[in-house]
């Protein structure tokens, strides 16, 4: 989960590609104040660059839909982009726990890796993690898509109700444990599948969907084959006479 970032290089790079950006220093600003400013600025500008996030929590919470791109220059702490209602957020570093928690729409791109539970309970929108996702990535997600260029940790997709997780670098233990209707596409080694998770054949519509996604988000097709993990459905209904099934999973 190592990623190296350099503020200066990134800064120079950003100023070239977005000369019109508004710059904001997070240093000394309360998270609430910073988020209020982001809400306002994002309605009037095409790019907002936030300096010195210093891995602080609750940055970019509850932002609304706009054509603006919000860039955090450095790592962010817990719950970055939570309750996102349509904003485009780019994190030039790592993200802490609960990235994009309960987001409804919009897009969050993380150039580094994420800690636990990225996209927890998300309902829509897209999260793209260019490094590794931590354990429980996409836990209890109810919609939206998560793309991870690296690996994800244990119990990713746990209790996912809906939505899609695409992982290109393998997964830890108990992948897709107790899922409902979510789908996981994974390339690379999987340590183990979780309770009720089952591997299914990819059909042509899956392939078509993934091809479009990869093209849209600039992801390269993995060398290893992609597997599709879904819920077998044995946990969907409870019947007291099926105690044996419950004990077996």
């Amino acid at each position, binding site marked *: 989960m190592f990623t190296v970032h350099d503020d200066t290089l990134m800064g120079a790079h950003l100023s070239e590609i977005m000369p019109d950006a508004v710059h904001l220093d997070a240093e000394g600003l309360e998270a609430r104040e910073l988020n209020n400013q982001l809400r306002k600025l994002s309605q009037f500008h095409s790019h907002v660059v936030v300096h010195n996030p210093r891995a602080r929590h609750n940055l970019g919470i509850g932002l609304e839909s706009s054509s603006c791109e919000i860039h955090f220059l450095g*790592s962010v702490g*817990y719950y970055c982009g939570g309750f996102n209602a349509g904003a485009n957020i780019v994190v030039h570093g790592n993200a802490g726990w609960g990235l994009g928690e309960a987001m409804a729409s919009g897009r969050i791109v993380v150039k580094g890796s994420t800690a636990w539970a990225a996209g927890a309970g998300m309902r829509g929108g897209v999260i793209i993690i260019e490094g590794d996702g931590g354990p429980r990535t996409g836990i209890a997600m109810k919609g939206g898509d998560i793309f991870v260029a690296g690996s994800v940790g244990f119990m990713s997709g746990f209790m996912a109700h809906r939505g899609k997780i695409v992982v290109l670098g393998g997964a830890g233990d108990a992948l897709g444990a107790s899922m409902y209707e979510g789908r996981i596409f994974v390339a690379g080694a999987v340590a183990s599948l979780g309770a009720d998770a089952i591997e299914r054949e990819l059909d042509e519509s899956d392939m078509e969907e993934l091809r479009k996604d990869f093209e849209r988000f600039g992801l390269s097709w993995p060398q290893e084959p992609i597997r599709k993990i879904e819920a077998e459905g044995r946990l969907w209904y409870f019947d007291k006479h099926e105690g044996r099934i419950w004990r077996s999973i």
Partner: protein
Amino acid sequence: MCGQCGFILKGSGLIGQLLTASESAMVHRGPDSTGFALYGEEPVEDRIVVRARLAQELNSNQVIQDIEHNVTAVQGSFVSEPQMTNGVKNSGTFLRLLVDFSGSPALLLEAIESVDGVYVHSMGRRLEIIKDVGTAEEVATCHGVVDFIGTHGLAHSRLATESTVDVELSHPFWARPYLDVAIVHNGQLTNYYKMRHLMSQRKLKFLTGNDSELIAVYIAEQLSEGRTLREALWKSIADLDGVFTYLLATETAIGCATDPLAIKPLVVTEVDGTVAMATEEQALRQVFDAELVTEYVREGSVAVWPAATVAKRGESVHSA
């Protein structure tokens, strides 16, 4: 919840200041009490540093006389005048003693604690545990932690979840009576009473009923039996049940072990030879200006970072 951190410097330096700055960024994780385990720079043969608290209602001069009497009775002697500090929020008088003593540490501990109302927080050739109620800033200012020079150390802000807010129940814990072993712990053990029962049968003693103290004593016992720190940490993952991400410091290293789910996070980084670890990444960013290369410790894993070799005052220091 709790927030903990640890630092290993390249040589000797303002370890107390670093720990205070880092811990201050995690006040929201536990504002009840704060503690520091600091490893000073100058060990002297047969000399033991004792940190203790005297209950508030006691006459401290009388208590110190009683302690000196008991220490003399076990062939020990005070090297210098005892230092006294009044705690934050009337939490009592805090005592630092330098004792010349070559017997068993357990004997010295018993001699000191046989005086009523005296609670020994740490004993070691280099270890000094300073803990009190209040935030990192309050405790560090009150007890002069910011001026402390040393090679490595731990700090902990506590959110009391399973017992009351109390100085003795706050972290770090010393692995009594083993010199120089200290722990900070985030989590709770579920097989505490079983472990305590087994360890009591082996005549191990505890000051409190706190599960974190038990882990410290457990590891110290393993070390005293000749296991390496790494071996002891691995064994603890098998023997302990519950939630834990703990940092254990000795005179020569800081070790870490996590339970198989690692629900309590710990972020580690290294900057120019200084190794730093903290529950939250922002606590590290508080100390280092540059963007950091950080890593979360993995579930069910151990790590050991060696501390700098100790130099006597005036000598140059090289990292281990």
